[in-house]
Structure formats: C-alpha cells, structure tokens
C-alpha cells in the first residue's frame, strides 16, 4: 500500500491564516520536518516587496489570499562547469492580523534551500525589509517567558553561536571572537556563561524539556529567526508572536525619523541607552569611534572628539545620513538627517550592539 505524501498534500491546499497555522502544526506532528520562521517588517506588501528577479534566482507568486501568500523560489548555481541541479522551494508569507507592516515568512524546506536560496534572497531585499534585533536581555527574557508559558521544565542549550569581546592590540580597539559551543547548559546557565565571556549569542539551539522528555529542538537567532521540529503552536504563540511585537515596536520607533518626513524638516533623534555610564572616559569614546569605523558600506567622520563626541555617518546602502552625539556617558544619540530609513537605523543600531555595546533604543527626550 502506497504511503501518503503529507507534504504534497499540504501544498495542494489553500489556506487562510488560521488554517495555515493548524496545517503546519499537523504536518510537524505527522512528518519529520523542521519549520523555519522569519518575522520581518516592511512598508510594502509581500508581492511587491519580493517581486523581483535576482541574478540566479527565479521568484514567483503561487497564491495570495486571506493574509497568506505562497511563493516559489528557484536558485540556479552560477557554476556552469558542473551540472548542478537548481535548488527549488516554496515559502509562505503570513501577514500579521493585528500588527501593521509585520509579516512572518514560513517554510518547511530543507536547510540547503534556506541557506543557499532563501536567506540570500531575503538579504537582497534589504532595505525593503527589516528584521528585528534582539539584545541579550530581550532574548533571555523572551525564552524564559516561553519556557514558563508552555510549561517546560527547562530549555537545554545544546548548541550556541556566540561572539565575545576581548582587549585588542590597541587599547581603543577590541577584538571580537566568534565561536560555537555544544553544551548541556540550562537556559539561565547559558546566559550566565556568555555574560562571563563578555559576549552575546548570535543564535541558540535548545531542547524544550518537560522533565527529561524532549518535545522539540528549537533555534532562535538574534535577528528573530526561529526554527522548530515540533510544538509549533507553542513556538508560534509564545516565541514568534512576542518577537513580532518587538519587531513592530522597533519598526514603529524607527519610522518617520527622516527630517524629510515632516514639512518643517524637524529633527527626530533616537538614543541607545546603555543603562550604565558606558562612555564615561575618553578611552571608551575612542573605542566607540573605532567600532563605528568598522561599519560596512558607510562613511564615518569625526566632527568633534573632545570634550563631547560627534560623528557623521553616511549609509552607502541607501544614502541615509546620521549624526551621532555623546553628550552624557549613558547614551549614544542618533540623529537621522534629511534621509534616515528604518533599515538604515536598524543597521546602525545592530552595528553598535555587535561591535561596541548593547543597550535599549528609545525616543530621544531633550529634557529629562
């Protein structure tokens, strides 16, 4: 008797938001799949956002209804000397029912498709799309709440990619070392470990345990990308949904910051609040300058360095321009000039988090 191909059956159906979530949950229960979820924000609807042909990738919209879009993507290897078959796959884009400009890209395709076709495709969609940025505290509290809400006894971290800061050859330049660990640490233990190393997680893979039984292996990255091989409803409701909230909040915070967004060309700065006197001395400010010089595809000029720090940045991705000011040791003020896009602000903040120090992003208050 022929076995039923649930995956083929799954793709034959048409879905709205609710039925898609149910179908994915059912699929993960019946077949060995890993589901990858990528929450993103965009000012453009998915068909417009992704409608393009990028080099070696063919892209098509298969269906679009009820807040669910299904797309096909084919990647042809650029190497002509080998007969390499194209990599083909499909992905859904789920339009968040409540949060405007917020979407979740979902796929059950292979990691090979995701790594070689989908993620480069998504990266090429920058600056039209914007991924979230979870600082360590966000990531830790998000996972702790996920554990508690779903009644797991622990989340055992089995694999983690992290980066750590070490003193460099120059006192003003820290060296950042990337490494991967395989561990059996519990959730809190893993965050203590990385804190001790003066580092941060880029991604965490953990087993969701109830007592000693593993219910799912789940991965979460700093950009809010998650994958799971089970417990889909729980992951969707208690991990992806909160990530969407964070994504939406930061997107709202970063929107309309260009001076051109207001008739009177008003300035709308943001701050990265470090929560401590991070920039108290000249050496720290010099470290920040060195870190900002590492920003890829951008210019950086030091306008003032003493007593206060003022830097000017041009983002060569989309021509956004910023001034960065340090007027007290607790915060870095980001002033978008005539053009300061959401994607560019996100890139700038992400660079500061990765290469200097993490903090909380807030609306700038002149008085207070």
């Amino acid at each position, binding site marked *: 008797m022929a076995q039923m191909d649930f995956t083929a059956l799954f793709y034959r159906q048409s879905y709205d938001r609710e039925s898609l979530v149910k179908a994915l949950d059912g699929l993960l229960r019946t077949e060995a799949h890993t589901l990858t979820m990528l929450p993103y924000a965009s000012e453009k609807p998915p068909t417009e956002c992704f409608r393009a042909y990028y080099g070696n990738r063919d892209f098509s919209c298969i269906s679009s209804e009820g807040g669910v879009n299904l797309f096909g993507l084919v990647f042809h290897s650029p190497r002509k000397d080998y007969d390499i078959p194209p990599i083909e796959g499909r992905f859904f884009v789920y339009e968040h029912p409540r949060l405007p400009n917020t979407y979740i890209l979902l796929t059950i395709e292979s990691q090979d498709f995701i790594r070689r076709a989908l993620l480069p495709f998504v990266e090429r969609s920058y600056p039209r799309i914007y991924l979230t940025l979870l600082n360590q505290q966000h990531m830790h509290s998000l996972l702790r709440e996920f554990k508690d809400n779903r009644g797991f006894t622990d989340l055992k971290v089995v694999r983690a990619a992290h980066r750590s800061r070490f003193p460099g050859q120059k006192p003003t330049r820290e060296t950042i070392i990337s490494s991967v660990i395989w561990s059996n640490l519990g959730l809190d233990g893993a965050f203590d470990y990385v804190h001790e190393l003066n580092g941060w997680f880029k991604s965490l893979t953990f087993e969701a345990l109830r007592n000693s039984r593993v219910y799912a292996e789940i991965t979460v990255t700093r950009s809010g990308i998650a994958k799971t091989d089970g417990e889909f409803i729980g992951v969707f409701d208690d991990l992806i949904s909160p990530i969407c909230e964070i994504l939406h909040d930061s997107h709202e915070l970063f929107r309309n910051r260009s*001076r051109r967004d207001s008739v*009177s*060309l*008003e*300035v709308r*700065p943001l701050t990265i609040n470090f929560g401590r006197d991070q920039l108290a001395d000249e050496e720290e400010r010099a470290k920040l300058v060195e870190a900002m010089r590492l920003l890829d595809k951008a*210019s*950086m*000029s*030091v*306008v*003032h360095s003493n*007593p*206060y720090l003022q830097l*000017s940045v*041009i983002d*060569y*991705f*989309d*021509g956004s*321009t910023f*001034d960065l*000011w340090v*007027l*007290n*040791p607790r915060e870095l*003020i980001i*002033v978008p*000039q*005539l*053009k300061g896009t959401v994607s560019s602000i996100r890139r700038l903040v992400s660079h500061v988090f990765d290469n200097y120090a993490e903090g909380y992003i807030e609306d*700038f208050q*002149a*008085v207070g």
Partner: protein
Amino acid sequence: MTMAQPVDERIGQLVEEIRIANDDYEDTIHAIIGFVNLYLLDDKTFQPRPQVKGFQGRHLSPLPTEEQTRGTGVEKYVSPDLGIVIEDSRGILGEVKKNFPKEMERAQKEFVQLKGYDQNLTGWPTVSERVESHEVVLLVHQMTSAYAKEFYEEYLPQTGIVFERPFSIVEFGRQEQVQHYFFLKTVLGQPTEIGGEKKLKYGVPVPMRVLLHEYAKTLLYDARPPLPYLAELIWRHVCTPIASENPKFEHLHKNQKIEVALAIEDIVESLNEGFSFRFWHSQHPDRQPRIPRKEWVKQACQFLVESGEAEWVEGSEETQIIIFYQKYDDPVYHFALFYATLEEKKTAKPMLPGFEPTETADSY
C-alpha cells in the same frame, strides 16, 4: 628624510587648521543658539516663551541713514550675528567673536562693528519695525574673554568709541560634568535677563541635549563658512540623497562615480531649507538674507571643479554643475585634505633659487 615629508607635514598642518576653522564656525553657531535660547526658552521647562523672538543675520537699517538713502538705491544696513526681541519692545543685538584678537587694530575693528549696532535701527521683527530700547552684547570664548574685557576697559576710551546703550561682554564655553553643558557667563556689564535674576553674572549652564534639535539642523549662519566645510555639506546633504536615487548607488564601488547634475540655485535652496537659521524666521522672513549665499556655493562648487570632482555644465555660465559622486570613507577628512593639497600647491616655494614649481615638476 625624503623631500616628500615636509610637504606631507605642511599638508597635515593645513588639514589641522581646517579642522580648527570648521570647529570655530560650528562653535559660533552653538554660541548664537545657546545665547538666544536663554531668552527663547523658559529656563525651567525649556518650553518656548511666546513673548520672545530670535533672529540671526537680519538686516537692520540705521534710521537716519535709511531716511537719507531712501530712493537713492543705496542700501545700508547692519546684520548682527544674533538678535532678540522681548515683548516687541526691548531688543538685544549681539556679535560672536570666538577668538577675540589680541592685536589692537583687529580688536578695535570688532568694536567698530559693534558700535554699528549702538544706534537707532529699524527693521526689527515687530509691527512697527522698531523697539523702544535695545542693548549690545559681545560673545567671546572663555579663552579670550579677558582680552575683550581688557580692551574695552583700558583701550577703547582712547579710540573715541563710546557706547550709548547698555553694553556687555558674555563669555561662552563648554563644561563637562555628568553631561555636557554650554556655559554662558557675564564678564562685563549686565545684559537684560527675563525675570531679572542676574543668573548670567554667576554663569548659566545650558545642557547641550536641550539644544540638540537646533544644533543638528543649523550648520550655516550668515558668515562665510570654510570652503571644505561647505563643499562637504553639499556632498553629504545635497549630492548623497540625489545619488542614492540612482539604481547604481547601492553597488557603487569606491573607484566608481555617479554623475549628479545640480543647479546652484537648488543647492542654495536645499541648504537654506535644511541647515540654516530659517526656522527662527518663519514668522518674519523679510530682511533675512538667504543663507548660504549663492556666491559661497559657487565658490565651493568651483573648488570641487578644481579638485576634479565636478565640472560646470557647458554654457550654463556657472549656474549648473555636474558632480562626480564617489563614496568616500571619511568625507570631512577627504575635503579637508583636498583643500590643503590645493592650497599647498598654490603656496609651494621654489625648491632652489630660480626654480618655479610647474605642473610638470608637480607631476613627477
């Protein structure tokens, strides 16, 4: 030691001089913003005071002069660095001189200019265009305030310059405590203060963050900025947004260029709209010069042409320019270095008596 080293050192020194000139220019803007906002903003809530107006570079006409020159086509006016009107009746006019000169002759010139404000003037931003009374203030950096005070007290009487209206000198500087402050303190006289608290006598620290919105959008005032400073502003704030609309922009390599066609008039308008004191003058735009002046922008564009970074559109009589936009790692340094290199070439001394530097010699 190679022959190239002294040239590099000279260029390095020029670059440093440009950096200082840029700093001085911005410090002057910060002094104007700092002092005028003492009046514009409530000192407790930092909210605008509706009864106060501020202005920068406004053309005020001496009353008798205006009457004499009416109909003759001759325009005479003074344009103080800063002006304040309180309740449409009291006025303050001021000049900022960050580095007050030690030399007597130059110091005297500063006071001659200030004396121009010490007369009945019309053109104030009031209904009658006049005020009942006004006073004059000189703002100097704290490093040179002692020279200004000494000159006023000891040497000015010998020049015959006497101020009929109240005159004061206020020093400014920066203070670093937990946060950075812009600091203002009277060193001579007693400027009018709203509420009459005499706070300026003991010094007023204004948190820089309170004024950040104004610092960020005010990069030009009615004095000619250093050439590389203006060229960089044009590059950053006028060329970059236009270049970024080009589909090639994102993937443009460092050695590739995008042509950006601009009219001088559009550059002036763009900088005036986004980076001048225009936002202070929205209710009284008459008598306000348009900053930057067209001739400054033309000169900055000519500098770009000489640097090989642009060319004038043929037949446009220097009203339109094509800029070859490139992605620079550090545009501020880039334009300072370009300017310094051009200046160094202009002032290069013959290496041996009788030998003049030529293009051919330079190219070796």
